[in-house]
């Protein structure tokens, strides 16, 4: 019965559309030619800030560090009025409870990486327990990694089943599926992994863990946005997008917004459907907002480093 929905009919992923690298790179660079000025720059910057998943994913993370980050998430720069909050705080499962408590009823989501992040090299039951733990601690969103080794070995069914199992373990939490595009090697594979993730139940697809170079790039994000568009046309189901890692400057973030606007349009231009996974981007955006308001760049010392 459930198979009546077209997106639950599992396609042959080896037939995923092919991607031409040169063409994708050309198209991606075209977005950077848009000139974002005045009001549209200010609105764009605020939108970017509101789409950030403020992230700390370090072995040395402590309660104190996470609490400070949460305060920053709620009050990015109190010296100026009308600054929006970020979208979410992204932490390891062991820090979810601290983050949840610190964020209280601010409306900011807690995202937790899970499934033996960042390598994903663990048995399925460990990954499921990792996920359940994070959800039970209060995570609103789960950022899982796919098994890249299995993917490269052509075991797409394994990758698919794993994502579907994690989706089930998520319950109400939204699932972001990290493809780790820096390890996939070609755009063809990025497209194929995107298709697998979406059909297996991802709510979001995400480029990278931030631990592998290259992380998010505009071409790779474009390939994933186009996969989301094709999936939407085929099924009517919206999937979110999260580029993560390597986006630390406002100008680049605005180029990403241009790309979302021109590939997916209005419905995706909000933090329910588009996120930036970043830690240092927020301060650069704040610096630009202050510059737009006062006409002057302030020293980095005026912005809190958390």
């Amino acid at each position, binding site marked *: *019965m459930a198979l*009546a*929905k*077209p997106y639950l009919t599992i396609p042959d992923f080896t037939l995923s*559309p*092919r*991607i*031409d690298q*040169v*063409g*994708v790179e*050309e*198209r991606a660079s075209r977005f950077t*030619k*848009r*000139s*974002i*000025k*005045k*009001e*549209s*720059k200010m*609105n*764009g910057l605020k*939108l970017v800030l509101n789409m950030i998943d403020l992230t700390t994913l370090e072995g040395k993370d402590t309660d104190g560090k996470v609490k400070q980050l949460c305060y920053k998430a709620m009050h990015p720069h109190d010296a100026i009025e009308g600054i929006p909050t970020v979208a979410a705080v992204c932490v390891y499962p062991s820090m979810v409870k601290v983050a949840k408590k610190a964020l209280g009823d601010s409306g900011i989501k807690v995202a937790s990486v899970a499934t033996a992040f960042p390598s994903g090299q663990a048995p399925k039951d460990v990954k499921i327990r990792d996920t359940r733990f994070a959800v039970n601690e209060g995570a609103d969103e789960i950022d899982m990694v796919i098994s890249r080794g299995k993917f490269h070995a052509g075991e797409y069914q394994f990758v698919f089943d794993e994502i579907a199992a994690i989706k089930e373990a998520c319950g109400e939490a939204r699932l972001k599926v990290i493809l780790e595009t820096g390890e996939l090697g070609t755009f063809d594979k990025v497209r194929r992994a995107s298709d697998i993730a979406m059909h297996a139940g991802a709510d979001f697809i995400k480029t990278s863990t931030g631990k592998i170079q290259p992380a998010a790039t505009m071409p790779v994000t474009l390939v994933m946005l*186009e996969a989301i*568009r094709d999936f*939407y*046309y*085929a*099924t*009517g189901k919206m999937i979110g997008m999260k580029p993560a890692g390597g986006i630390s400057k406002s100008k680049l973030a605005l180029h990403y*917004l241009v790309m979302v*606007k*021109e590939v*997916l*349009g*209005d*419905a995706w*231009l909000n933090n329910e459907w588009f996120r930036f996974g970043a830690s240092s981007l927020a301060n650069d955006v704040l610096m630009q907002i202050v510059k737009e308001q006062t006409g002057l760049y302030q020293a980095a010392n005026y912005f809190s480093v958390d």
Partner: protein
Amino acid sequence: MAVKAKKTARKSNTIKLKFDTSWSYDPAPESKSAASIKPKYDHFINGAWVKPAGGKYFDSINPANEEKLSEVADGNEADVNKAVSAARNAYEQTWQKMPAKERAKYIFRIARMVQEKARELAIIETLDGGKPIRESRDFDVPTAANHFFYYAGWADKLEYAFPNRKTSALGVAGQIIPWNFPLLMAAWKIAPALATGNTVVLKPAETTPLTALKLAEIIQESDLPPGVVNIITGAGATGADIVNHPDINKIAFTGSTDVGKLIQRAVAGTNKRVTLELGGKAANIIFEDAPLDQAVEGVINGIYFNQGHVCCAGSRLYVQESVAKQVIRKLKDRMETLIVGDPLDKNTDIGAINSRQQLDTIQRYIKIGKQEGAEMYESSCRLPGKGFFCRPTLFTNVAQSNRIAQEEIFGPVLSVLTFRTDDEVIEKANNSPYGLSAGVWTDKGSKIFNLTKRMRAGVVWANTFNKFDPTSPFGGYKESGFGREGGFAWVIALCEFN
């Protein structure tokens, strides 16, 4: 269950993306004040500005707002005589005798000066011709400079390029260029002529003379010996005077097929050499295994680049029927994100149609397409109140026998046709009086080679479109002209072999 599936299917037919977003781009116009345009331009003959013999001038307007930019000299036979004799004199007295490496220095100097004045040239190109500043800034002007650089390098290599043969110049080259890439076409014609030791009389199109005249200022400033390059302005009659002048050795013309035929008739029986680069109705072919999103982007750039005023524009799209629906949907989505408007705005994708006359032609063809029963789709963008503008348009359900599939429209109008097999599409693509360019989109290398071998077109692009480079030969089959311009081939066409 069947009912449910049907419901979902119906739903997916109504799924639509909305590109008119709450977050939009503010105007980002390039500043007009960075360019200086004189109120009046004379002919550039023998290194000096010379008033037209007939005393007449005509206006050059900005097609984006119909305001007058400047007035330029209207050339007649006397002006052409003056220019040709200056060119002949310069050829015999200085240019022919000058060592090749010295000639190269002048051409390199012009190349650098074009780069130095790139911003001003881009602004004037956009004001005078209507093309978006993004294109004149990122394509026209840099490519023009590249042509001077590339051919400057040829000058002192000619002696070694043809073993056991000696080359010399032809003499005076008469060059008539179109309005779609005014500065680039001027560079494309002048640079190789100078490198091979010829002197030049060039006439830019009457709607877009200003960047060629700006180039004349650069040439004057570069201390190029007087008379080596002469630029005279005027309409078709002035061009005819050049073609018919007995003391010209070589005619190079880029423009419409109709005028090309007139030129060929005029030079028949004379010893003038000719190269003609004329119209086109390029086939852009998408196979079902193609990378579709990139193919769609290539098709969009193939037809809407420079408002479709491109002789090699991919104006006939052949899509394999199994992916036609998907491709057409993708095309329509992409068209919605094209920004039509003020050419000086850095965010504009499609600027103004070059002239009222050309806009009328395009609109006439759109009407013909509708009457022929093809289905028209145009993007929903708003057009500026003043100036000559046309929305990006596509026709589906087009038949091979429709006029919109056969005749060159030279505007932002795409005809979409479908096909089933490789042989069928090759036959249909070749079924045209033109043969300038073609494009093929497929993931399979062998298919590309099969197609390129059998396609009767001067340029065939594979998984890309509209790529130009000074090193690459360019020219057409059939009524798209003859002779190859660009690259080494262009050097050969301008040399006499002794």
